[in-house]
Structure formats: C-alpha cells, structure tokens
C-alpha cells in the first residue's frame, strides 16, 4: 500500500537506528503520547533497535484508557435501556466499568453495535425512528471533527432520536500535566501525528519553551517513529527545545482549519477527568448550548455521579510514564486482557495490553522477581 509500506522498510529502519546510536552520548527518556504509536513501538520492537541509553516511556495517549470509570458506567446504563441502540467504536466494547462492559451488556440482550464512523450511527438513527440511537463519542482531537459533524448533521437534518455521549480529551493539557508533575521523568516528546493533523502544532510551542523539552510531531509507522526519535535525540544532544514536524506529509503548522471551525462550532473546552490521572482543567470537550439537546447524559438523566477505581490498578502511573506495565504486581496475574483491572490492559492501545500481548514472555513480572 502506498504511503504505508515505504515506512515499514527494514533498510530505512536500520539506518535510522544506527544513526540514533551514533549520535547518542547520554541517557534520555522520551515519551510517545499516542496509543497508536505505543502499539507500533511494541509490535515492531522499536525499542529493541534503540541503544540502551534511550528509554521510551508510554504516555496517556489512549482516549479509551483515560475515559473515566463513571462515564463507562453511564454508557452501560444507557445501553441497557430497551429503547436504545448503543453505537460505539470497537475499542470501547471491552473496557471494564464498575460491573461489566459493553460486551457483557450486549450479551444480556442490549442492542450494542460497533460502527466504523459516527455517520454510521446517524444513519442507524434515520433508519430506526422509533428507537433512541446513542453514539459513544470517545477520542482525542483526531476524532472530534467526525463527532462534531455527526451532531451538526443530526441538527441540520432534524434527527431527534440521535444523541452523543461525549468523552473527548485533549493532548496538550495532558502533556502539561505530565511535565509539571514532581515525579516527571520525560525529557522529550513525540507528539501524536494524527491529533496534530487536525490541530496543527502551534499549541505545543509554549510547552516546549516553558518546560524546555523538545517536541517532535511524529507519525505511526516504524520508520516515522524512528525518525521522530532521531530528531528528538538530536535536539536533546544539542540542548535545544523546539517543536519539529516529522510527519510533514500530513501535518501542517496550522492544522486542518475547516475541521477546527466545525469543532469550535459544536464543542466547547471544559475540564475533564482522566481515568488514573485525575481532573485536568481545559482538557476536554462538551457540547455547546446550541447542540445541548443532543447530549446523551442530559437526555437520559445519567449526569453527575462518582465512582472509585480498583485500588490495585496502577494505570495512572503507567499512563504518566512513571511505571512500566511489568512493574505492576498484578500484571499478567490478577490483571490480564481476559480479566482487566483497568483500561490500560483492555484497550489494544493501552501500554499494559500491548506489553501483555507482545512482551509477556520475555520478562517475568519484575515485582515477582523481587519477591523471590
């Protein structure tokens, strides 16, 4: 496939890895923010190609993982209602709430459907005027234009039986939360290439300056990630802290203006709770007043309740790059993809799930080793 295969090329990957090894003189910790990048790093064994000096940390780049527990519970409540057709991206189906997940609710008879696009959910609403169709609008800024369009079209086409359960989160506030934490270890960032395709990268300039960290907008294929790491290491070795763009074939400085305009029309920025991290101000989207009628939380009266997380789950620390999955005492034993304690083990982008699938056999749980 064009624009895909070239970036999975062995020779290119090896020469980038060799160049990184040549220029690295000190240990550096670099965080990739996006779950898609985590997936690629673990799947292609990119950390194996890097010199031991470079540590890759996995950030909270998985909107599935950071969706708060109470929102999952609200989704389960809404989905269980007989008049509802609950539509969601496949990623959300196995994320555990307080008691069960969308998959188990579906098994009990709820009408839960996987859709590829929010417009598919809108079509289901048009085709089923007597049912209530609810779409689980999860995602980073990348998915916000699509979700905004679904709501916009619902209003324009006067489709009353459609609503969205919004769980959008924004990347720059998450990066700031990580950098400002006292136990922060991250010295450089790979910013999420598709988030920046929509948003551009201007909002990262003040972060790079304030915290003196290089930020490189990076793609998702192994060659993209290696090049992003190379650019980041070059900056670190040279003491620079700038925003650079590795993913120039898709990302422009100002991003996608038509998408941003529609997002601004439909959404407003609000504080959001991040599962495992806590509340971060100005880090999420909510529907604007004009579109409030399409808010599923209001329509189904499930607003405002609080749920406690499983105490053993350390996904918050994993999401901030402070701990690695294997350092969790429950990793691979009490917490597995079949019986996850937290979202980082369920979502295929979650660091714990990625490590479980690809790396479990290589290293026994470090905690288990320490005990023996």
């Amino acid at each position: 496939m064009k624009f895909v295969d070239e970036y999975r090329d062995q020779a290119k990957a090896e020469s980038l890895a060799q160049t990184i090894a040549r220029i690295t003189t000190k240990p550096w910790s670099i965080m990739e923010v996006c779950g898609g990048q985590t997936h690629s790093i673990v799947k292609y064994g990119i950390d194996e190609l890097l010199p031991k000096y470079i540590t890759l940390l996995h950030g909270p780049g998985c909107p599935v993982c950071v969706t708060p527990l109470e929102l999952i519970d609200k989704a389960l409540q809404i989905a269980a209602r007989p008049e509802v057709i609950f539509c969601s991206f496949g990623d959300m189906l196995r994320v555990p709430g307080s008691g069960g997940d969308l998959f188990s609710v579906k098994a009990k008879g709820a009408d839960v459907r996987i859709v590829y696009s929010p417009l598919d959910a809108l079509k289901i609403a048009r085709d089923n005027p007597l049912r209530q169709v609810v779409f689980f609008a999860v995602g980073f800024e990348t998915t916000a234009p699509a979700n905004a369009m679904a709501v916009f079209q619902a209003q324009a086409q006067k489709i009353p039986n459609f609503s969205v359960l919004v769980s959008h989160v924004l990347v720059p506030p998450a990066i700031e939360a990580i950098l400002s934490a006292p136990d922060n270890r991250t010295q450089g960032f790979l910013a999420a290439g598709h988030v920046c395709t929509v948003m551009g990268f201007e909002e990262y300039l003040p972060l790079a300056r304030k915290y003196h960290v290089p930020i490189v907008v990076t793609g998702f294929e192994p060659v993209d990630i290696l090049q992003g790491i190379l650019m980041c290491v070059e900056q670190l070795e040279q003491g620079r802290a700038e925003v650079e763009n590795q993913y120039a074939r898709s990302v422009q400085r100002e991003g996608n203006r038509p998408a941003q305009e529609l997002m601004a029309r439909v959404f407003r920025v609000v504080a959001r709770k991040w599962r495992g991290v806590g509340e971060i101000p100005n880090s999420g989207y909510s529907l604007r007043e004009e579109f409030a009628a399409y808010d599923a939380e209001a329509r189904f009266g499930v607003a405002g309740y609080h749920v406690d997380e499983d105490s053993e789950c350390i996904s918050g620390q994993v999401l901030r790059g402070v701990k690695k999955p294997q350092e969790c005492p429950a990793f691979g034993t009490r917490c597995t993809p079949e019986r996850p304690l937290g979202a980082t083990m369920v979502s295929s982008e979650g660091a714990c799930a990625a490590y479980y699938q690809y790396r479990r056999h290589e290293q026994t749980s470090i905690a288990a080793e320490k005990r023996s």
Partner: protein
Amino acid sequence: MCLAVPGKILDVSGSDTSRTGTVSFGGVSKEACLTFVPEAKVGDYVLVHAGFAISVVDEAEAAQTLEYFRQIGELGELEEKP
C-alpha cells in the same frame, strides 16, 4: 490515537458538509466524507479516520522524507568504511 489510513480518491460528489468521495485503500474502496479537505481532488491521496478525510497527503514532503532516508543510509555506509 488514531488509526488514519492513506487512500486514493477515485471519485467525488456533493459539496460542503455533504461532500463525499470513494477512496481506495490498496484496492478496497470505502466512502469517506471529504468536507474537511475541500482542496482534495480525484487522484489525490487522503488520510481517512473514522470515515472522514483529515488531510491530503503531501507527496512532495513524503518524497523528501524518503530522500532523507536514502541519504542517511548512504552516510551510514560511508562512515562504516574503514
């Protein structure tokens, strides 16, 4: 986040918020909304996420990146020679 896949636009129809196109991904075609890439035309490659094109692939930039890889590959070979 997030899965966005490059595909080639085969045809375009509609306009504004109803502008859509058939996009081919290695031979499999799927409809995508092209509202966010008003400049995109038949023959262009776009990145598609959740049924929406979010950017037009800048082929010149892509070529430049690949050229860069070729150069560092050669540089690597030069430096390895005794």
